[in-house]
Structure formats: C-alpha cells, structure tokens
C-alpha cells in the first residue's frame, strides 16, 4: 500500500530515536533530494517542504500516531493531494461515441501510445478507430498503420487534406457510420513556443470538442514540464495524462507539475515500445519510483 511504501522509503526517519528540529530538517532535506533527483520541479518541492514543516509544527498529532508516523502521514497527504490514492480505472463509456484527442511535445510517444490505447480498449470490448491528424511528420500515418497492422483497428488518414479539422470531422463521420464508438485522434508533436501549432490544437479542440484531451508526457522530462503543460492546458483543456517511457531510469517527477497545473490525473503509463506495453496508472508504483 502507499503508506507502507512511504514507511520503507523514509526508513531513516523511522530508525531515528525522536523527532526534534534536527531530525525534521534532515527528513525534509532527504525528501527534497529524492524529489529533485526524480525531476519534481523546484517550485513544487519547496511547496511540499513548506507544507510538511508547517503542518509538523502546527498540527496536533492525531491520536494513536507517533510523532514520526505523523510526519509520514503529512508526506502521504501531500503526495496523494496531487496524484490521488486510487489506481486509475478504465472508465470510458462503451455504448456512446467517445472522442479522445492525444496531444504532446515532439517525440514524447503520442503515436505509439495512441496505438497502445486503441489496442487496449479493443481487448476490453470497445469498438475502436484511430484518426491520424498529424499532417507534419513524414510517414506519420504509415507509422500508425504499421503499429496497428495485426489488430484489425481501422486507421483514418488525410489523403491530400491539409486542414486537421477537416480530417478529423471526416474521420469521425466515417467511423460513426461504421458503428465505431471510441475514436482516438493522434496529433502532431508541438511545444509552447510554436504559436501556429498551439493555435491549430486550440482550433481543433474547439471545432471537434473531444470528450477527452490526453496529454502525453515523457517520464524523463525535466523542470520545464509545468510550463509546457500549462500552455497545453490553456490552449486545449487537459483531461488526463499518459506517462510514457516509464521503463527507463526516469522517475517521472515532471508529471507532478503537469498534474498541479492541469488538475488532470495520470490514467495510463507506457512501459516499452510494443503495442501491449501499456498499464493503468497505479500511484503506489509511481510514488515508489519518485522517492527512490
């Protein structure tokens, strides 16, 4: 469980004999180092540290808890406030149309994750179709088609149309007429300094009004995660996060900043390059990696 895991991660605190000012400072210092190595933003680390210090000093220790257990509980609360304590559940409706748009920075794993999610949903009984709305990347639709080639999941692509809104409208129309209810849209990579691309995403979201906009984030992202997520969220409100490349040595702390600015939860993680390397997000695993 999350609390057992926290206890293990903060074992130094548990082995000390008392919680005086010095121990509290060392505890906070250790937490800060772990979080910073895990790419949590400096701003968020300072905020969490302040909250731990303030509550440790001000709060009355809940009955039945030792001073140490109280500190652990505070840390637990701070992390759960951001990422939630329940594992993600598959909550997409099966019986009505559901349009999910994947967005994110170049190379972070959108196309691969779109294919993974499509296959995952199909295996769980959804009628899925994928629209390639990336008109920039050479062979983007070919990449999607190759990823999905043994799954029977149809891919709708541009074939001469330049306008992404037009592509998606036609794709949704075609899939709907074929009885496909769950439609995933792969979009081009973009970042906050590319105004034209951010504007395109905004126009696409406003014209199509997808049921969900999922932000794809590379677990290795550093201190710029929050700023980028904020820009995406301003242009097209983010409903959920797909954290990729969790199978590397990256701890994914950047995702916390993305969560903080979008209020979205992480729904899925990518654990490799193959189409079945996708899992529902589990906060216990995530916090375990975060606190090393």
């Amino acid at each position, binding site marked *: 469980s999350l609390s057992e895991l926290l206890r293990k991660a903060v074992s130094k605190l548990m082995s000390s004999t008392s919680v005086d000012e010095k121990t509290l400072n060392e505890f906070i210092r250790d937490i800060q180092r772990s979080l*910073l*190595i895990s790419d949590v933003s400096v701003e968020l680390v300072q905020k969490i540290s302040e909250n731990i210090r303030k509550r440790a000093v001000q709060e009355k220790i809940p009955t039945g808890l030792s001073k140490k257990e109280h500190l652990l509980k505070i840390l637990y609360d701070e992390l759960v406030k951001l990422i939630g304590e329940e594992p993600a559940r598959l909550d997409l409706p099966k019986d009505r149309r559901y349009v999910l748009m994947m967005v994110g*920075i170049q190379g972070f794993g959108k196309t691969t994750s779109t294919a993974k999610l499509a296959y995952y949903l199909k295996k769980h009984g959804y009628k899925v179709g994928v629209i390639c709305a990336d008109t920039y990347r*050479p*062979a983007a639709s070919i990449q999607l088609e190759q990823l999905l080639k043994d799954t029977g999941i149809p891919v709708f692509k541009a074939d001469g149309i330049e306008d992404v809104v037009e592509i998606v409208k036609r794709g949704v129309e075609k899939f709907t007429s074929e009885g496909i209810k769950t439609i995933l849209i792969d979009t081009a990579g973009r*970042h906050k300094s590319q105004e034209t691309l951010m504007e395109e995403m905004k126009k696409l979201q406003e014209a199509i009004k997808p049921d969900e906009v999922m932000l794809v984030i590379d677990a*290795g*992202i*550093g201190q710029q995660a929050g700023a980028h997520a904020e820009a995406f969220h301003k242009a097209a409100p983010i409903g959920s996060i797909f954290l990729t*490349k969790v199978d590397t040595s990256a701890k994914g702390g950047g995702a916390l900043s993305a969560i903080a600015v979008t209020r979205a939860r992480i729904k899925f993680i990518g654990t490799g390059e193959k189409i079945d390397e996708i899992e529902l997000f589990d906060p216990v695993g995530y916090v375990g990696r975060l606190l090393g």
Partner: protein
Amino acid sequence: TQLSEKELEKLAEEFKLTLITNDVALEVAEKLGDILKEKLAGMKFKRFTDPTQQIREVMSNVIEEILPEENNLEKMFMEIEEKKSREPYVVLFVGPNGGGKTTTVVKFAKLLKDRGYSSIIAASDTFRAGAIEQLKKLAEQVNVRVVSQKYGADPAAVAMDAVMSAKANMIPVVLIDTAGRTEVDINLLEEMKKIKKVVKPDKVIFVGDALMGNVVVEQARRFNEYVGLDYIILSKFDADARGGAALSISYVIGKPLLLVGVGQRLEDIKPFNKKLFREILLK
C-alpha cells in the same frame, strides 16, 4: 574581507537551485555548488564594496570550466576532407527513443551537402514502425540517398551495405541512423555495441533531448560505457530548453557538444555556442 561560512553556504545553495531550475541534474548541481564554495572561500573582497558582480563572475567561470569546447564541427569537416579520397567517413548516430536522431541525421546530411560533401544514409532502424519510410521522406527533401533493407534486417548489415555503396560510388560520408533505445535495455545496448564493432565508425554521436532532466546522466553514462561516444547533439532547444542537460552530460562524460537542434525543419541546427549557454544557465 572574506565570505563567512554561512554566506558561502547560502551562495552555494542559490547557485545549485538556479542550475537545477535550468535542468542541470541534481548530482552535477551539487558538485558545482561545492566547486563554487571552494573558489569563493579563498577569495578576498574589497571592504565596503558590493561583491555581487565578482561572485557572478566566479559562478560563470565554474560553468565555463565544465562546458565543452566549441568548434568541433570544423575539426570534423577537416577530418572528412582528409579522408575523402581514400574511403568513406562513417558516423554512427545513437540515442534514446524520440530524442531526434532521424531528423538530426538528415539535418547533418544537409549541413554536409551545404559544405560540398555528399553522403549516404543507412536506415539501420529496422525495428520501429514507419522508421524507414520516415527517413526516406526526410532524406528526399535534401536529395540524399538512403540505403535500406526490410524491417527486421540486421542493423549492422544495412550499415555495411551503405558503406559498400559509398565506396563504389566515391561518396565521402556515410551516416547511420539507428533505433531509439533506453539506457536500461541490455539487449539493445549490446546490439548498439555490436553495430559499432562491425562497422568501425569514425565517430559515434549521441542525440539526446534537451528537455530531459536527471535521466540524461544515466543515459550519457550507459551509452558511453557501451559504445564510447565522440560527440553529443541535443535537439529541441527551440522548446524553451534551458540547456542544463548539456552541462550534466559534459560533467559526467566530458564529451563535446557538437550541435544543437533548434526546430523541425532540416536547416534548424546550429553549432554549440558556449557564451549563449552560460547566459541561459545563470538566469
């Protein structure tokens, strides 16, 4: 006067935090903080004057000493020129998934072309969906030939194919694009090692993503351990990257930063500018 221990500690903390905010890995920022303390500890400051400017200069020097040297691109062009009438100059590109290798390889081919050197690109990513088609379409934009086989082919075999073709056609440079791989996948690290062993490239270039944080330390270490890196190229600098990854990589494996990618067009690549980096890192 000299700075007190308390003042030194405060300055080191500020310096560390600035570096970390600019994406320098924690272990590197801590080491640089220690170096700053050592340098400042010995210094004497004039009484009644504001030491800020002097301190800033010391911080700038600490970074300056770690950042790699410039002008490696010119050195490389000289080597290519020297070798061109004898046999092809072979460059192997490796790096993590999605870091910008394929785009960078074609950008590099364009750089060479603008300098008067033709090249052949080996499509040695025989694994990822759409990799061969993506490379071919990019290369078409600058009229550079791609040598490829089927998906699933041996990457080293495709590379040797390209080298043979370059030899037969007197083409001076061969650029090898490989599949993305993680620093924890032993099989793929071994595969990369084998490609180098078979192909014997003149240079191995690591292409990484400037937006990445602490993971670049492990990436640089492991890739360097398995295949020996000659140069680093960091892409996506146009995405408001602060450049800390460059400092981290330089500190950890000491290999020069050759170029930085500053966009998705094939002309969007620039030589590494030390002064610009120093300024960005100290913001």
